[in-house]
């Protein structure tokens, strides 16, 4: 069961239900058993009393022979036609005095002498009606001396048991199902209640990510049984955070340390007079410079919570970024443009980060479009900004992946490291902003960002 049912609540309910079922079965079984015991002893006593009754009506007749004289009411009860009750009475020598029917008389004659101790017996399919009887045979003192009395009654004793059970079901048992239901509900509720802190902990756990490694699961109110797990998870998170911090510091330091030698190499290369190979080398170094900048950017975004609370003018920011990238675009034989609103568009965020995001989107667009085309940045009202190009567009199946770190599209010439859009996504996320990718009509890709209006 434990292997199949994972829910504690369900498991407890099912197990409790099984327990209640077994307990009720046992109780009912026990009740039937004791009821039939009771019924049996009642029947036995009744038989004994009737034997004594019969013995009382035996007296001596004129010939000093014992004979039975029943009052009319008993006469009827023992009437041969009904065959409901049978009796046979013999004297101390075993001679039959009287019998309710010849069959029982014949049978009693074959039996050994009765004792003062009652002996109970059963007859099955007896008599002309082939009915089952239970009876007693006992030796009793009477006015005419010791008598052997045999009394039998049709076994219909179950009726008593049935009536006892019926009584029980109607008087007592009806409240068992509601009680069981309430108990089960209570169990389920109590489990749910005591697991609530665990739900809170899972909500917290799902918020833990590379950007929020300092979060821990709440230990307060967690049930004692689950506490060791929560504490252990928190300790594990502590260790992970340490490792993470070291890793990040390493990335940041490494990128930072790479910068100076790269500046030197860039400068040296510029001072060299050269041929085509040299310009290829320069391009390569420029690429490396960009990569190092992006790595630093990623490391920074990972390690420092971005302050996204300053009001800023998206239009002014876009103007600055587009202006600053104009020369880069022109030297790559492409151009950039700014369209849309020409009035301030106020949003709340981090200007440097949004500028970084925009720069990365533009660099990305420039890298994936043909020479002579234009990359358009459009600022809309309500904090919307988009970057549109006239390149091949982004295939629908790639759109889920383009924001992953180091992801690069197939068949796209290896240009960057695949960090640009990941940086954009981090920044968008830190702002609680949204980004969507779509096709531009008639051709090209379109990135739409929407920031919170100030």
């Amino acid at each position, binding site marked *: 069961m434990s292997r199949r049912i994972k829910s504690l609540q369900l498991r407890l309910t099912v197990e409790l239900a099984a327990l209640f079922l077994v307990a009720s079965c046992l109780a009912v079984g026990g009740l039937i058993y004791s009821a039939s015991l009771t019924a049996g002893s009642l029947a036995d006593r009744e038989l004994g009393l009737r034997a004594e009754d019969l013995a009382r009506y035996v007296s001596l007749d004129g010939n000093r022979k014992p004979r039975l004289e029943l009052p009319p009411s008993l006469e009827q009860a023992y009437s041969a036609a009904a065959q409901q009750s049978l009796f046979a009475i013999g004297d101390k020598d075993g001679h039959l005095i009287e019998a309710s029917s010849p069959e029982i008389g014949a049978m009693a004659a074959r039996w050994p002498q009765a004792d003062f101790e009652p002996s109970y017996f059963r007859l099955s399919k007896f008599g002309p009606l082939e009915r089952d009887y239970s009876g007693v045979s006992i030796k009793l003192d009477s006015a005419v001396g010791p008598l052997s009395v045999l009394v039998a009654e049709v076994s219909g004793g179950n009726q008593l048991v049935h009536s006892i059970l019926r009584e029980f079901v109607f008087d007592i048992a009806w409240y068992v199902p509601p009680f069981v239901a309430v108990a089960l509900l209570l169990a389920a509720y109590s489990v749910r209640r005591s697991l609530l802190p665990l739900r809170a902990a899972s909500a917290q756990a799902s918020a833990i990510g590379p950007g929020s490694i300092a979060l821990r699961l709440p230990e307060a109110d967690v049930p004692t049984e689950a506490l060791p797990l929560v504490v252990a998870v928190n300790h594990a998170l502590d260790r992970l955070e340490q490792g993470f911090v070291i890793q990040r510091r390493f990335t940041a330091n490494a990128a*930072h340390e790479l*910068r*100076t030698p*790269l*500046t*030197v190499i*860039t*400068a*040296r290369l*510029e*001072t060299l007079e050269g041929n085509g190979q040299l310009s290829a080398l320069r391009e390569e170094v420029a690429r490396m*410079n960009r990569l190092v*900048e992006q790595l*630093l*950017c990623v490391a*920074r975004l990972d390690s420092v919570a971005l302050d996204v609370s300053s009001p800023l003018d998206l239009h002014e920011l876009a*103007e600055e970024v*587009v*202006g*600053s990238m*104009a*020369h880069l675009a*022109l*030297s790559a*034989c*492409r*151009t*950039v*443009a*700014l*369209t*849309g609103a*020409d009035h301030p568009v106020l949003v709340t965020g981090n200007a*440097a980060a949004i500028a970084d995001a925009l720069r990365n989107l533009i660099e990305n667009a420039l890298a994936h479009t043909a*020479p*002579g085309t*234009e990359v*358009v*940045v459009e600022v809309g009202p309500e904090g919307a900004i988009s970057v549109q190009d006239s390149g091949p567009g982004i295939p629908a199946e790639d759109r889920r992946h383009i924001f992953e770190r180091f992801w690069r599209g197939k068949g796209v010439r290896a240009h960057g490291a695949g960090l640009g859009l990941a940086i954009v996504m981090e920044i968008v996320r830190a702002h609680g902003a949204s980004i969507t990718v779509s096709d531009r009509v008639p051709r090209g890709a379109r990135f739409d960002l929407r920031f919170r209006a100030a």
Partner: protein
Amino acid sequence: MRLLVIEDENRLSGILKSKFGDIGFAVDIAGSAADASAALELINYDAAILDLGLPDGDGLAVLTAARRIGKALPILILTARDAVEDRVAGLNAGADDYLTKPFAITELIARIKALLRRPGGVLGMTLEAGNLRLDTVGRDLTIGGMSVRLSRRELAILEQMMRRFGRIVPKAVLEEKLYGIDEEPDSNPIPVHIHHLRRQLDAAGASLMIHTIRGVGYILAETKV
């Protein structure tokens, strides 16, 4: 022309020295904040390049100290691209321009020259970009050595473009400069002037052209696209 390079990275300062030497600058190198402050106090440099990350102290302290003792020389600071605050603090403390590392030496030289060409700067009044030469006093333009005649408004626009060669000139800046000197109400809008200017530069065989960056402004750059 005497230039002070305040930079603790020897290899970089070596390259700067040789490169600026090539175009006729005398370059001194200071490798620490202390050396830099001493040098600035003793010698009247024409310009300085200041790396903000120095081993013995903050480059900003050097900057403020120099301004406090009345040194008005143009100072360009070098910062890391991610250190926006440094950049802002540097400009607030009296820096004239900044470049982020890693940078291109040619851009550094262009920026330093531009600083020296500012009104009151040491470099004469001649602007140079590509094969264009503009005497800002005589209002004289030569392209590839040939004299070219332009209208006053076109010259004013070209001057702005040459002062910010390779960098964007926002429309608003051009409007401001133009209507400052030319108050004729019926004057043509800027795109018309740019159009004329472009045609004349092209006709005169200029190695540069004015590119329009829609929605932002204009940029003077190598003839491409």
